[in-house]
């Protein structure tokens, strides 16, 4: 299983080079590090949520990194696995607050964007993806499981390439996250990440008793990015010149892990 490209946007900036050495110190007491919405042109994005635009931008960054064109991933041979713990929270909240019973006026046309499937749908539409399609909901362990699902789709010959996309946003539900400080460690850092995979090989999906070094590193440098964390770990491993990325992710008391091979030569931004 080979990593062809990685796209990473976080509240700290673009790519791993923007990550601080210590996210907690860099946050300087801020609970949430927001991620600005990249510009997306076109009528189709008029109603799309911030999370949708972030997902599209993460894929674009991964394609640039891999040196692939849009045409090379469009069609039924590219699978899409999307994962998030919470990136539907803001759209859900807006829809709930818009209930006329609460004095709100949110249009029903906004309803489809409350589904977690809205983000990968916009990605699939934008890039013309029609291959295998799995959407997982959960934190860092689910990020690991998304990488495993992509490996299963590739290993079974159900696709030639697989995109694993993760998006997490927190700003709109910051007050709710504040109540859950016991469950997630801060700072909460908004992020969108994409890993483009190709090839085959056993990724060794299994429960992990302890965090892999990359989990610890990704957490220390990026902060709490939930489902994005394992993908950030992959990006950090590649930047370090590692030949493989053993990533783990923990969520709700369960820690899972996979190992991906990394290209020995690369020309990425």
């Amino acid at each position, binding site marked *: 299983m080979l990593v062809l490209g990685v796209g990473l946007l976080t509240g700290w900036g673009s790519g791993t080079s923007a990550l601080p050495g210590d996210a907690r110190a860099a946050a300087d007491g801020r609970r949430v590090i927001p991620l600005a919405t990249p510009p997306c042109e076109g009528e189709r994005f008029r109603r799309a949520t911030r999370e949708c635009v972030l997902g599209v931008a993460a894929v674009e960054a991964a394609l640039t990194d891999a040196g692939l064109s849009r045409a090379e991933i469009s069609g039924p041979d590219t699978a899409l696995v999307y994962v998030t713990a919470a990136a539907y929270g803001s759209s859900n909240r807006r829809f709930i607050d818009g209930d006329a019973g609460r004095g709100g006026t949110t249009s*029903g046309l906004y309803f489809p964007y409350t589904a977690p*499937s809205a983000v990968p749908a916009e990605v*699939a539409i934008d*890039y013309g993806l029609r291959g295998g399609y799995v959407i997982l909901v959960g934190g860092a362990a*689910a990020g690991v499981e998304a990488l495993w699902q992509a490996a299963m789709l590739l290993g079974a*010959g159900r696709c030639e390439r697989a995109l694993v996309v993760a998006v997490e946003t927190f700003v709109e539900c910051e007050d*709710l996250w504040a109540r859950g400080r016991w469950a997630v460690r801060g700072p909460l850092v908004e992020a969108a990440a994409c890993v483009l995979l190709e090839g085959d090989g056993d990724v060794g999906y299994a429960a992990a008793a302890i965090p892999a070094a990359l989990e610890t590193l990704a957490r220390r440098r990026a902060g709490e990015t939930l489902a994005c964390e394992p993908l950030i770990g992959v990006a950090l491993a590649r930047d370090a010149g590692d030949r493989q990325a053993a990533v783990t992710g923990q969520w709700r008391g369960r820690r899972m892990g996979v190992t991906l091979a990394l290209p020995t030569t690369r020309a990425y931004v």
Partner: protein
Amino acid sequence: MVQFLRRVADVLRAPVAVVAAGVATPLGLDLETFWSGLVTGVDGIGPIERFAVADLRVGRGGEIKKLAALADAAATSCRASVVLLTAADDLLAHATLTAEPARIAVVLGTALGGVDELDRAIAEAPGPRVAAGGLYDSPAHALARRIGAGGPVLTVSTACASGATAIGVGADLLTADAADLVVAGGYDVLGRFVMRGFDALRSLTRDRVRPFDRRRSGLLLGEAAGLMLLARACDARAPLGRLLGHASSSDGSHIAAPDPEGRGLEHAVRGAMAAAGIAPADVDLVSAHGTGTVLNDRIETGVLKRVLGARAGGVPVNSIKGALGHTMGAAATLEAIMCLLAARDGVVPSTLGYEEPDPECDLDYVPRAARHVRTRVSLSTSLGFGGCNAALVLEGGA
């Protein structure tokens, strides 16, 4: 590496045993009541009583009217969890989890998770537990705690195809040897959030749900949970049957409407049939998504005709959404269970609400009454918001 690929491909072709099933539905809170309701044509749809709907165009749906209280240890205010755990109790009445806890996995599909808990968290500002319950994966973890599953716990949210995708992911866990038993399925409950959404989109009908009927004018929602206990076929008996193949796809077409040509669904159906190693001649029954919307039913009919070819006209195609409403994350699992029970008893439930043929929907939709016919291999199709498609191929019998 080639050997690994062959092993994965071989394992993916190997069937998965469906050891048992459990449900909680508007037709009944156990498998046999649900099944007898489908066979005898019970209509589970009526006025919604649990929350305010007076301001909506449509206030009917497949609501579960009476839920038994759960044991104290599982007490929760989250209705999605309560419905889910009720189905789990039914499942465990039919089977014992014989694997080590760490080898038992849970994979659940949902379109809405515990969104009503998010609503409560925003409105009532209570403690952290309710806020955490608003995350869509909370009910799956409640189920894992309830049944003592210590393996992977995954939540799948491919909208209304979630139940089928979850079964496929559950099968993948078995083939990857990440678990020995998987509780897989789907759930969703009715609430103002989802009723407001579909009502505003004008997707709900004021008539009854009429899948494939000339007069069909929309869907009605329902709430339910459906669960299957899956195991590797080489490790377990399969009293209910086997999952032979599964596949998913994206439309890449529209945020809320299916691809006009059904290309994504066709890709998923062909993929599931290829994974199962079956030909059109092998298909004895199709459990259609069959929502009762003008577009879905026409597109689905077209896809079935293209995939099954000359065989299409001779295969019974039913939809159980006329009886239950569209139960969203639960729908595909309930439909898969229906396929297996149909094979067990040699009877296919009718498509409740289907009365007048539509020239554009010209297959055999099992009108009027359940049909006594022997079926073995079934195809189940599902679609959802966001261009989600999934297909399952199931085989009934031990």
